[in-house]
């Protein structure tokens, strides 16, 4: 433990490190998410690569001081490439006893704890269920760590006492003290946050002033007191040259949809019902009215997808966004879209299930629902995003496939990448692929007949907008006669239509890229086959193992239905296949069923992403078995 020594001239060491994981942890009302975001944005602007992971309870304000109310924000930043928010923490900011209790198990030995002593009084210790009389800040239980005890609350009050602000406002500024101290500790400039505060509180100058004073006080506390004598320097990362921005998965999904709308020339329509953790996409798109984006907050999940079906029917790029329980409610309507053969994008930001499950925690357990969760034979394309910025590409691809192949498409993301952020070397308009749209404008059958279900070489039917003169026709959920679309109960026609709809989806494999090895070689002893948000952890684990001399590789799936054409061939180059998933083995089932390969699963269903260590241990164990 380090304590202040009086009367000694302060000397500060500078220590260079290549990556750091900081965990901001406090009560739901302590502003930890905002503090973490400000710190991350500053690190990103400074040039670090990074990955963030907001981890908060589903209760907006759980009882103060309790373990249930702890809200965490994790940021992993470095001077090298970063693919995950990190397994273990180098630094914990614990605003109260409950926060320490929750996060201590993942702090590295020798890691730093910055504890707000005001959050460790008897009441807080009791609320966090420490045994009577126990106080981790005073006993020896933290001797394997570096503990800094700072009375953040007192210092904040001290520096704001002249401002005339009430206790409540003063209390609310204390996260800025912590942020200022962290900026000092990691040698980061204050500018970005100063701008942020000025903008956010432009109409409340007294609050802006209080936040600025506190932020600077935190910095000065690090600089001037004897308590801290080491600063950590994390140099800018050697990222690919280019212009970057910071982006969360949900934000990337939203602008992926807008980009597809702009490139295709189709107006964007979103029918959606608020649900955690998908709502941010609706929030974001609601802002883009200047770009003709129409958002309709529907009365329920079903109306969300149904209004989108209506909009697609009349020629819009139509989308509905949701999470697991909402996807369950939408299934019948998605079946209708499959039967009508109209474009529709369904974004499912997966969360822990079943039922209400773990609304704010992550999981990948909706894969089989996306694949098969409709009555009857109703195949549709399924795409999965692998990182926050990949949500952009995935959303764009989902739109392209939906429009060009006249089909509903399910895009799977999850809470982990939806809320997590990373630097993104964003594309420009010219880098984006074309989205071809063809509306039928004249009869397509002999003798000027209209054949709404006459297919092209990809088995795709024409999109016919109501309002087009001379093409009036009826479509519906009843089985339809091939080509004419008239109602048909003919047994052989039904089978033909089932096969045509399935074949149409299968043909999409000709329109997606072949799968390549992500890391490692095309032939190896073991391949880790992943999908979705496990990408960062798998990549980190596999790269580290390759460096350590293991013969392993990483293959990552973005297109799950249909699979890339060469998946089977690619997998045949490896002796062993490991499929890690945040579910009980859903991709595993699909791979085994389709390719009859003895793939091995690795499940984690804790509402938390895989750590690199977990994956490395499992890979090594499988290699040795």
């Amino acid at each position, binding site marked *: 433990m380090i304590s202040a020594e009086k009367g000694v001239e302060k000397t500060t060491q500078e220590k260079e490190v290549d990556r750091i994981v900081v965990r901001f942890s406090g009560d739901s009302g302590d502003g930890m998410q905002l503090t973490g975001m400000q710190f991350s944005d500053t690190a990103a602007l400074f040039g670090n690569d990074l990955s963030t992971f907001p981890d908060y309870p589903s209760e907006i304000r759980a009882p103060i001081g309790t373990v249930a109310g702890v809200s965490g924000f994790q940021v992993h930043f470095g001077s090298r490439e970063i693919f995950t928010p990190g397994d273990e923490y180098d630094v914990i900011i614990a605003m109260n006893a409950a926060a320490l209790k929750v996060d201590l198990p993942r702090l590295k030995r020798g890691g730093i704890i910055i504890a707000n002593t005001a959050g460790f009084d008897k009441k807080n210790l009791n609320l966090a269920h420490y045994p009577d009389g126990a106080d981790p800040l005073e006993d020896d239980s933290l001797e394997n760590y570096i503990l800094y005890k700072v009375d953040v609350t007192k210092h904040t009050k001290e520096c704001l006492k002249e401002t005339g602000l009430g206790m409540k406002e003063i209390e609310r500024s204390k996260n800025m003290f912590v942020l200022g101290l962290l900026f000092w500790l990691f040698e980061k400039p204050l500018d970005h946050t100063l701008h942020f505060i000025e903008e956010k509180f432009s109409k409340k100058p007294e609050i802006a002033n209080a936040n600025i004073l506190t932020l600077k006080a935190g910095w000065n506390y690090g600089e001037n007191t004897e308590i801290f004598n080491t600063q950590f320097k994390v140099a800018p990362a050697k990222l690919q040259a280019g212009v970057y921005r910071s982006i969360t998965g949900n934000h990337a999904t939203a602008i992926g949809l807008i980009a597809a709308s702009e490139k295709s020339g189709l107006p964007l329509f979103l029918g959606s019902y608020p649900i955690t953790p998908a709502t941010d996409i609706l929030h974001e798109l609601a802002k883009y009215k200047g770009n003709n984006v129409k958002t309709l907050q529907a009365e329920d999940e079903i109306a969300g997808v149904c209004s989108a079906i209506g909009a697609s029917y*009349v020629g819009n790029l139509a989308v509905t966004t949701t999470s697991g329980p909402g996807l369950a409610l939408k299934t019948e309507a998605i079946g209708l879209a499959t039967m009508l053969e109209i474009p529709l994008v369904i974004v499912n930001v997966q969360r822990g299930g079943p039922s209400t499950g773990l609304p704010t925690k992550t999981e990948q357990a909706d894969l089989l629902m996306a694949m098969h969760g409709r009555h009857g034979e109703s195949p549709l394309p399924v795409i999965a995003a692998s990182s926050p910025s990949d949500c952009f590409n995935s959303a764009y691809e989902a739109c392209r496939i939906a429009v060009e192949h006249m089909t509903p498409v399910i895009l799977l993301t999850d809470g982990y990448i939806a809320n997590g952020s990373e630097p993104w070397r964003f594309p420009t308009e010219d880098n984006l692929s074309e989205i071809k749209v063809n509306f039928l404008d004249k009869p397509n059958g002999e003798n000027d007949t209209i054949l709404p279900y006459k297919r092209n070489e990809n088995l795709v039917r024409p999109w016919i907008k109501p309002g087009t003169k001379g093409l009036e026709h009826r479509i519906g959920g009843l089985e339809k006669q091939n080509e004419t679309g008239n109602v048909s109960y003919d047994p052989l026609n039904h089978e033909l239509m089932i096969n045509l709809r399935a074949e149409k989806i299968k043909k999409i494999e000709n329109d997606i890229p072949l799968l390549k090895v992500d890391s490692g070689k095309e032939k190896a002893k073991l391949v880790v086959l992943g999908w979705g948000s496990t990408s960062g952890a798998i990549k980190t684990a596999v790269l580290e193992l390759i460096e350590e001399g293991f013969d392993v590789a990483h293959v990552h799936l973005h297109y799950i239905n249909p699979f890339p054409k060469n998946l089977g061939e690619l997998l045949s180059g490896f002796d062993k296949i490991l499929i890690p998933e945040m579910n009980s083995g859903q991709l595993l089932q699909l791979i085994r069923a389709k390719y009859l390969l003895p793939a091995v699963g690795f499940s984690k269903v804790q509402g938390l992403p895989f750590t690199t260590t977990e994956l490395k241990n499992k890979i090594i164990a499988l290699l040795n078995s």
Partner: protein
Amino acid sequence: MDTQTIDKSINYVAKDFASEMEVKWCPGCGDYSILKQVQTVFPDLGIAKENFVFISGIGCSSRFSYYMDTYGMHSIHGRAGAIASGVKAANPDLSVWVVSGDGDSLSIGGNHFIHLMRKNFDINYLLFNNQIYSLTKGQYSPTSEKGKVTKTSPYGSIEEPFNPSELALGAKASFVARTLDRDPKHMQAILKRAHAHKGTSFVEVYQNCPVFNDAAFFAYSDKETKKEEAILLEHGMPLLFGNNNEKGIMLDGLKPFIVDLNTSGVSANDLWIHDEKDKTKANLISRFFDTMFNDTHFPRPFGVIYSEDRPIYEEGMAEQIQHIKNKKGKLSLNKILSGDKTWEILN
């Protein structure tokens, strides 16, 4: 409706709106009359054929969209209103018609129904009410009378029925009307009114199901009973009914009562004058259903119960878009991609 393309050069006739599909309702079904009245009225609406869209749900009623030679979608159970909302929001220039039944609208689709009324898109909503589930062969519906004996209620239903017009008014519908399959002229007039109304026009059509619920509404159309059991509403006209128009309805505060013009000395001018714009009175009229006022049974009202001009959803949506366009302009795609804060990494 003033949003649609009006093409006066085209002179449609009713059969221009009949599709090639063979109509497959049971012989004697009230739906035939509704189809006929719609096809009769449509040539007079001045709308180009390609701008009509029918969205229907599931049930006998909802086969309707197959029979109209316009654009149409036969969708899924209860969701026609929700789909229609997307159609109208995405393309306000279309004349959108929802066709639904009592089970489709008020049971499985109840939530969409009330929110559609509240949101007030400019669409026309035809609810064919036969007070029974017919396509599934005879189970009680949310509008079946209490005590109804059906296959699922062999000892009589124990549920109170919905009164659709009262429900629609409660859900803030801006236009509420009732008509009857067996009164073609009345239905045609109501369809025209519904079309003319800007906002969601809710039209309940009493429709006979000869197979599973025959004669449910005959009291309102049979010569012997209709003058006593039905009352025709007309804006600005007194509430008069009876075999010789000798009965009138008056108000004592908010309590309606029936007077005999022959014996009471009250003249027609003293009666309750129907005012479609008066919501309080419309609420009372809608309750001439199963509510007894002063222990008296009241005749069932037909006609426009309520009509109100209020802002429509898709115009509000368009105005916001225009407002933001004027204020902030359209963002270039490159600007959206880059956002406000970027940094450059150099090699």
